[in-house]
């Protein structure tokens, strides 16, 4: 079965619609995951990023944030934790592509797992380290 690492920018599109680009493609990935046609995984960094966006950008209540993070685990399973090897690779990728360690950690985790990283983040896509939801949906013929 195809497995993907889905980053925070895509995860949010799974639930939020207004103003979102590539919404249909992100939802197609979510729906395929829900049907069991593919497996979407997350890393622990997703929990921190989602929590931070909900807390500082969207000003959600603590209760709603906790509920959302619980639901994320229900949907994607327990987040994967970076190994020391992935973290070493993140440092190399960050240095090579002039990325922050946070950005590079996403790409290094996908590389460590040997699966594609799906992201709507222009910086990761421009560095050639992630593919957009549109590219993934087209490649997997989800739409």
């Amino acid at each position, binding site marked *: 079965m195809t497995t993907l690492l889905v980053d925070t920018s895509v995860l949010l599109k799974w639930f939020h619609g207004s103003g979102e680009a590539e919404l249909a493609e992100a939802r197609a990935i979510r729906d395929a995951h829900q049907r069991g046609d593919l497996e979407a995984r997350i890393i622990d960094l997703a929990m921190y990023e989602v929590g931070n966006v909900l807390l500082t950008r969207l000003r959600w209540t603590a209760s709603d944030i906790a*509920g959302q993070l619980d639901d994320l685990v*229900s949907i994607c399973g327990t987040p994967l934790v970076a190994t020391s090897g992935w973290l070493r690779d993140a440092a190399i990728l960050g240095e090579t592509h002039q990325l922050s360690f946070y950005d590079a950690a996403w790409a290094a985790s996908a590389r460590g797992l*040997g699966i594609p990283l799906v992201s709507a983040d222009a910086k990761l896509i421009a560095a050639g380290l992630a593919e957009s939801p549109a590219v993934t949906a087209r490649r997997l013929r989800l739409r």
Partner: protein
Amino acid sequence: MSKVMISLPEDLLRRLDSEARKRSMTRSGLLAAALQRELARRDPDAVAAAIARSEQRFRTAGSFEAADLVRADRDTAH
């Protein structure tokens, strides 16, 4: 920690060891992680309910592009 003896096909064992090396994990560690994942497998109804609750929470979140929020968060988090 209990020790157990299990039987695995040779090919599966080779793949297990190869994956464990790739992840800098022990064979036992990877097996435990895989088992935990299998046992935690979501049932479709629970996933559907979690998605419905999530959509409901975001319904009043307003209009924005998630990638912009995440990028802003990533750029200010460090």
